[in-house]
Structures are given as C-alpha cells and as structure tokens.
C-alpha cells in the first residue's frame, strides 16, 4: 500500500428522515432516522431480516422508498436514480462482471461516464497500486481467489472517487484470517480517502472494530445509534445489551437481590467479564458447567431462574455443582425498565444503596 492518492476526498453527509419500506403487510424498515456525518464510518448492524440491507439499498437507490426522505449533502435524493446519487457500492457477492478482465471491471464506471483514456489509465494505476492488483489486471474474476475478488470490487468502488461508499456485508464470503486483514485494510482505505462509509454487517466484531458510529437495528427499527464504546458500555435496551459482546450480557430479574422497591418492573444486566469472585458479593451462583478457554474460564450457572455466565481467570478451580459468590462494581450494572425496554441509569444508585445496606 503506497501513499499515491494525493488529494483526500471530501465525504458527504447522509441524512435519513423517517424512512420506511413496506412489503405487503410487513414493514421491513419502519420510520428510521439516521444521521451519517461526512467522512465518517457508520455500520448498520443487526440480525438477519432486521432491515439493514434494505436500508442500505434505499440509500443506494436500488429500492424505492415508501415514506420519509433521504438526503445526501443536503440534497434530497429520495426519488433520484442511483446514477444521480454520486455514490459507489460493494456488494456481498462482489457482483464482478464475469466476462470482463480485472482492469475492465475496475474501469467500467469511468468508461460509462466517458472519462478520458489518459485519466482512466492514470487512476487505474493509482488504484491498483493501492490495492496490490497490478499483476492481476488481465485475469478474469473466475481466476481470482476470494480475497482478490474482494479487492477488485473495492477497486471498482474507489476508482470513481465518489464521496459516499456503501458496502453490503463485503467480508462475509471470506475466511476468518482474511476477514481480519480486509477489515483493517478497508478501515485504512476509508480514512485515507476520507469518503463517507455506510457499512452493513451482522457481525458485531466488524461493526465495533471498524465504525465511528454503529446503528443497531432490530425488526425494522433502530435500537441504538452510538459510538462502539458507548454501545458496549451503555446499551440503550436489553436487545442492544445482548447483541453486543461475546458471550452476551447476563440479564436477570431484580428479585435476585432480594426485596427491592420496584423489582417487578426492572431487569438487570451484568456482563460476564464484569463479575468477579467476592466472598461478600451479592450474587450467589449455582455452577452448572465450566468451559476452559485458555486465558480464562467461562462459568455457566443459574441465578434465580435465569442462566448466568461469568468469565473468571483460568487459575480459578471452580467445579460444576459448587455454589460461588460473585461481586461486581456498581458502574458495570445495567438497569432496564421491563415495560418500556429503556435504560434506567437513575435507578443504579438506589440499587447500590440497597445492596450495601
């Protein structure tokens, strides 16, 4: 990767306002509003069928919008065709043209837009240098490995020097090692070229490691839109709490801590890595299974009527059938309202007082 691209591109901001997509009776995307700042990396994250790909395709102009508006750089593009939205896209299947060589694939858009030959070759040289494709230019896509095909798709997206780039699960067809490399590479490319990135993924690791902003979706709605750290440390809903982090956060009833004022309406959350052995701790766990993971052990147990997992140092010698006492720091406790599904930080202190009394 050489530093050949001199002028960083200015990305453009994207604004989604109450955007909906309806198929028959189902609302695939239900009135979502997202703000993607210019030059930022935004990941649309969620389980399959949550509407994240549909949202991306609406931004791309490949899907019609049933309600709301999409603006790019302040310009309303809701009904504009893809070609007039000034963006590029990388597809999950790469969508390389199988009958064209690597060079022709990358140059396709420039040829369509009648960019002069000299400039085309100039840009091709820059992009292939950047992505290490120089030796592969005459090959057909079928003669390339998965990672190389991925690079060609990237090349085709960045050669147009568009201010916005959309990616639809671009790494899901690669093996784990390659995925890690490409993750770093895509992030570096985005920061170097400065375009605005909207990136769809179902993999929380991808979203957390790459994005400036993660938009977590579920059932066509936004659960939380926040920076990765915020999403992990202060999840806005039980869904967000369970979706981010491996193993997922333990959710349990407030009854576990005995009589508590509003116990009925509250749900508590504690991440497995935030609990530790403590003789005076307030959690009493019946151990059911112990998984050895090398650096640490994952202890499976039951707390009240809910499953509970805790990550302990591997020096620990807990065995199934034992009962252990666990403690935690109050700032790591998450409190959610059962009825509204919202976070209740205002109650954390009250619970803390109760536990210490």
């Amino acid at each position, binding site marked *: 990767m050489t530093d050949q691209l001199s002028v960083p591109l200015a990305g453009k901001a994207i604004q989604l306002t109450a955007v909906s997509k309806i198929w028959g009776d189902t609302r695939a995307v239900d009135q979502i509003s997202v703000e993607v700042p210019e030059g930022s990396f935004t990941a649309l994250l969620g389980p399959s069928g949550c509407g994240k790909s549909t949202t991306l395709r609406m931004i*791309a*102009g*490949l899907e019609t919008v049933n309600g709301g508006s999409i603006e790019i750089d302040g310009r309303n593009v809701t009904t504009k*065709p*893809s*070609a007039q939205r000034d*963006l*590029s*896209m990388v*597809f*999950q*299947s790469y*969508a390389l*043209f*199988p*009958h064209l060589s690597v060079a022709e694939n990358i140059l*396709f*858009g420039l040829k*369509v*837009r009648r960019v002069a030959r000299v400039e085309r070759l100039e840009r091709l040289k820059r992009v292939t240098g950047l992505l290490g494709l120089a030796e592969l230019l005459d090959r*057909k896509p*079928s003669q390339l490995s998965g990672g190389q095909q991925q690079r060609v798709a990237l090349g*085709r997206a960045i050669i*147009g020097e568009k201010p916005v780039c959309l990616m639809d699960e671009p790494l899901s067809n690669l093996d784990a090692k390659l995925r890690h490399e490409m993750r770093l590479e895509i992030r570096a490319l985005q920061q170097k070229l400065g375009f605005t990135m909207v990136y769809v993924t179902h993999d929380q690791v991808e979203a957390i490691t790459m994005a400036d902003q993660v938009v977590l979706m579920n059932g066509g709605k936004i659960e939380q839109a926040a920076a990765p750290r915020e999403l992990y440390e202060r999840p806005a809903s039980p869904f967000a709490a369970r979706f981010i982090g491996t193993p997922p956060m333990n959710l349990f009833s407030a009854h576990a801590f005995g009589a508590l004022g509003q116990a009925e309406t509250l749900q508590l959350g504690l991440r497995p890595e935030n609990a530790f052995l403590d003789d005076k701790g307030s959690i009493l766990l019946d151990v059911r299974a112990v998984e050895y993971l090398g650096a640490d052990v994952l202890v499976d147990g039951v707390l009240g009527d809910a499953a509970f997992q805790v990550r302990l140092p591997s020096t620990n010698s807990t065995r199934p059938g034992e009962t252990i006492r666990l403690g935690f720091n109050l700032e790591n406790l998450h409190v959610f309202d059962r009825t509204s599904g919202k976070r209740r930080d205002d109650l954390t202190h009250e619970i803390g007082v109760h536990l210490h009394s």
Partner: protein
Amino acid sequence: MRSLKIKRDWVHGWLLLLPAMVFLFAFTHIPAIMTFINSFYSTPRGRRSAKFIGLDNYERMMSDPVFWKVLWNNLWFAIGTIPVSIALAIVMALWVNERLAGRGFVRMAYFTPTVLPLIAVANIWLFFYTPGFGLFDQITGSLFGWSASNYLGDPATALNAIIIVTVWKEAGFFMIFYLAALQAIPVSLKEAAQIEGAGRWTIFWRITFPLLMPTTLFVCINAVINSFRLVDHIFILTDGGPDNASALLLFYIFEVAFRFWETAYGATLTVALLALLSLLAIGQFFLFDRKVHYK
C-alpha cells in the same frame, strides 16, 4: 476368480450399453454409412442391380441447376430466419423477464407456436396467405385498398412467405433458452452497473448480451441445423413451387429420393447436406469460441 469377476463386469457393461447402441447404430450410424456408400453406386432398377460408378453422381450434382437453386434458396432461408428469430427471441425474453402483469400467460403465448405441430401451423398460415379472403389480403385490402395477391404462388414472394412462418415458429422456442439464461444472470450485476451510472442500453450491450453469448452460440447452431432440417411446412404451403422458388435442400432430397425414386442421387445429395452441416457447426464453434465467455 478375479479375472472371472472382471469378465462379468465387462459383460454387464456391454449389456447396459446395448439397447441404446442398437438404436443408435440401426437408425443413425449404419444409415449414414450406407448413404455414403450408396452415393458411389447407380440406382438399382428392376432386375438391374446397383453398380459402382465412382464419382458420377457427384458430377451430376455439380451440374444440376436445381441443386444450386435449392442451395441458394437454403442460404437465403437461413439468412432470413436465423438473425430475425434470434433477435425476436432476445427481445421477447427480455420483456417477459421483467415484472409484468400476466407474465406467465405471455410466456405461454410465446411458446405456443413451438408446441403446435409444424404441419398444423402450416395449415393455419395457408389460410392467412390465401389470395382474396386470407387474413393478410383482408387486412391490406381494407387498410390500403390493395388488390388480392398470391404470396405463395408468386416466385418472388414464396420463399419470404415461408421464412415468415419459420420465424414465427422458431422465435418462441429460442426465447425459452434466452429466458433461462437471463434468469441465471445475478441481479446484482445489473445493480452494480446501475450504480456506476450505466443506462439500460449500456447494461444490455456491455453486460447482458455478452453473458448471453453461450446461449446465442447454442441457439445459432440449432437455428442453422433447423434451417436445413425444417421442411414440413413446405409440403403444405407451396410444395417447393412455383418453379422450385421455395424448395430447400432437404425438400429436394425428398423429392429426388421418394418421388422420382432416384435413391442413389438422393444419397449423394444427402452426403452433401451432411458435409455442409458439419462444416457450419465446426465453423461456428471456432468463430464464436473466442467471444463466448463460459463460467
């Protein structure tokens, strides 16, 4: 023991092959070889049995004006039917591949000519072409006030009239192949091109059409073979007339062999036809091979 087992496998193998092989030899290979041999003999008549006459039959063929006439007819017939039916097939396939109301019905309607027997089709078209009260004369008569015309009886129009029937019959058949090929092209390719700013026309010529090339090759070879093979409708529509204006090579072979009973000369013409077809098929493969992208 072991050699016995191998022997038994060997017998099994041949027994399994036998049924297909018997039919293939009886109806394809032996007749082809017999035809080739017969073309060097005279036609047996009554007590006079066939005798070896070397290349006499071939010399006769080269100086036969009717042979050259039907060969030219066949060339025009091929040029008239193949490109038009392929172009029509692509256009129809593109259309029925889109989301449109009653798509299944339209697809079926296009395919109907293929399902109908050619003889029945020819009879329907015979009515269309009938001078005076046929469909075409009724339309041209009431719209433009043209006088009755005998499309099938005029040497200038007879071949064209047959070409039209053939195109109508074949386009729907070829459409099915194009439709299948179109549906095998991933939608994301079209979307990727769309994002890059390509219009419908560019997408068709730069993406869709090149990806349809394997189908085009297949359809082309079939169309060429069909243009020599499909002669059923000629019997109904024109019987090769007037003055051989609408006779094709295979039709002429049938006339020579089974109407005039000159079987040896018929065999000679058949050899010429087979040689021509193999040349065309091989030529097409070489011509197309560079331009066709196979997955």
